[in-house]
């Protein structure tokens, strides 16, 4: 109701101004207004174009952690990586691609699935995390077992419950494929297809999956957007209650923490399975909250269906455990106290982290 009314008022105001002007100026003004409306519409609805512009660091982001000197992102390398990411050839029976579980329109997660289905309908151990802003990550996997993006893809390719293949077989299939040898040639200067090239091409695509164009980013970069007063209230609360872990601008400090969610699979000890330190039991990496409104269900278990479930968890659902983060131990209980009004504005703020330009970017689409 409210915005409609305002618009009407604006239109009436403008009309009265327009009428009071001479005819030629009138035409001129109308054209300008139409043009402005047209171009701004185009900007907000039309995702960035298909043109490859290389990797660049968004103004409000820190320097990436990925070593680009070892694997410079080129258009040919990126396009090869993209083709591989979307190609079921990486799986044993040709049914599963990376993109089966990492779907662009949900920030490269599998929206709606607590766990994902790999080959032979086997379930993954954990909820599928987004593939976004990989260039800034130091740890991969929710327990941080992998430290180099280039080494990551061996996991899904060879995991019996994801793609079930062997690296050697994948390389062989690619070598015998009608297109791949020449695509490797374009990307790396010869038709050789080996482990290094396969992994580096996949990295090049994933490195380009940068999400930095949400409303939040536009506010931060002073690109003409501003928070509503509710969003601003939510942001202020976020800075007080959440930002110590979900640190700006990537919305994670990449620490491993137990945030008190119910243990679904006691065998999955999280960080402790890597460090073998009992203090790390049931600790998982703090996830980024970018595009969080689009990546439900939540947590490594995928047992939280909505953001409101998550906030209820923080305010009143936390389960005690010896490794629960000490910041959640408060005088009369556990968690982060939040009123329903606070939850409402926090949710509105979390929605400002949604980046449609990223999820609809044709450059990243199949």
């Amino acid at each position: 109701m409210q915005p409609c009314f305002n618009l009407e008022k604006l239109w009436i105001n403008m009309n009265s101004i327009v009428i009071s002007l001479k005819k030629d100026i009138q035409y001129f003004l109308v054209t300008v207004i139409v043009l402005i409306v047209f171009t701004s519409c185009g900007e907000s609805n039309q995702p960035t174009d298909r043109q490859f512009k290389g990797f660049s660091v968004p103004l409000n982001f820190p320097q990436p952690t990925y070593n680009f000197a070892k694997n410079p992102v080129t258009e040919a390398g990126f396009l090869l990586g993209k083709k591989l990411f979307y190609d079921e050839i990486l799986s044993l029976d040709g049914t599963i691609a990376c993109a089966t579980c990492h779907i662009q329109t949900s920030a490269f997660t599998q929206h709606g699935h607590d766990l994902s289905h790999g080959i032979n309908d086997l379930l993954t151990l954990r909820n599928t995390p987004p593939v976004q802003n990989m260039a800034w990550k130091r740890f991969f996997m929710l327990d941080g077992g992998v430290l180099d993006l280039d080494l990551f893809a061996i996991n899904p390719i060879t995991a019996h419950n994801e793609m079930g293949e062997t690296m050697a077989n994948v390389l062989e299939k690619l070598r015998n494929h009608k297109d791949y040898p020449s695509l490797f040639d374009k990307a790396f200067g010869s038709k050789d297809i080996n482990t290094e090239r396969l992994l580096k091409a996949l990295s090049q695509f994933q490195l380009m999956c940068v999400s930095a164009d949400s409303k939040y980013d536009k506010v931060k970069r002073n690109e003409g957007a501003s928070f509503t007063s509710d969003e601003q209230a939510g942001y202020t609360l976020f800075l007080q209650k959440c930002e110590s872990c979900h640190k700006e601008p990537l919305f994670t400090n990449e620490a491993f923490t137990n945030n008190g969610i119910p243990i679904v699979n006691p065998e999955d000890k999280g960080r402790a399975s890597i460090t073998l330190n009992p203090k790390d039991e049931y600790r998982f990496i703090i996830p980024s909250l970018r595009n969080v409104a689009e990546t439900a269900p939540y947590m490594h278990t995928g047992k939280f269906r909505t953001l409101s479930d998550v906030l209820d968890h923080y305010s009143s659902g936390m389960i005690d455990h010896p490794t629960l983060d000490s910041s959640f131990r408060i005088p009369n209980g556990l968690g982060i106290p939040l009123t329903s009004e606070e939850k409402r504005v926090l949710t509105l703020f979390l929605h400002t982290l949604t980046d449609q330009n990223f999820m609809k970017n044709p450059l990243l689409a199949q």
Partner: protein
Amino acid sequence: MIRLFIFFALSILVLSCSSNVTDPTPDSSKKGSLLVVFENKFGSEEFELLKRFTLNDSITVVTEDFKYYVSNIVLNNSNGSQYVLPKETSYFLINQAQIITQSINLQYIPEGDYSSISFILGIDSAKSVSPVGERIGVLDVAGEAKSMYWTWNSGYIFFALEGMYTTPRLINNSFKYHIGGFGGYNAPNLNNIKTITVPFGSSVLKIREGNKPHVHISADISTLFKGDEAISIEANPTVMFSPYSVNVANKYATMFQFGKIMD
């Protein structure tokens, strides 16, 4: 004191002179080569896959897979100096299923008289975190390292031994030892990197241009299950990335013995 020193210096001179009588003086600017032969054994028997070996009165084992990495090879000269093989040419995977992998060829070694060999059983920590482009040959996860790599915890398996064991109560139970752990990337973690030195006893490894001696080193698998801190195959049939793996690594560090040198 000075007298003692002179005496020592003289005796060294005499000793080295005496060996010079039979061999030309090693000229470290010249290079020779060497073949190191790993002879896997089970007790006093030659080891074979799929063959049943008797561990003790009640347990027999049949091994299906036996592999280990040997890297960072160093030759210790009897004069106290060392020759460190160039790192990049110093990674080997000894695979019981492929006889050719059990002899490793070392080249461009400075002439000298060497008294022992040292190596890492496994992969050093720097290599364990190296970029994918430096993981070639036996370190290529699409190739020979295929079953010697933990994808979920980026790291090489240093030592793999698996198969079946039989006791009076249980027939053909599987056992599996996959031991690795390079010490952690940015926080200390499980470290099973073992540097092993095999002294040649009274034998001398003479590296000379144009000669290729063979050094035989035996690796007795039964060592794991015998003696102090023996691994009980019944109590711990499966050991992988876990604190207990340290015990297995401590045992395999003692399984190498000098055999012989053939000039």
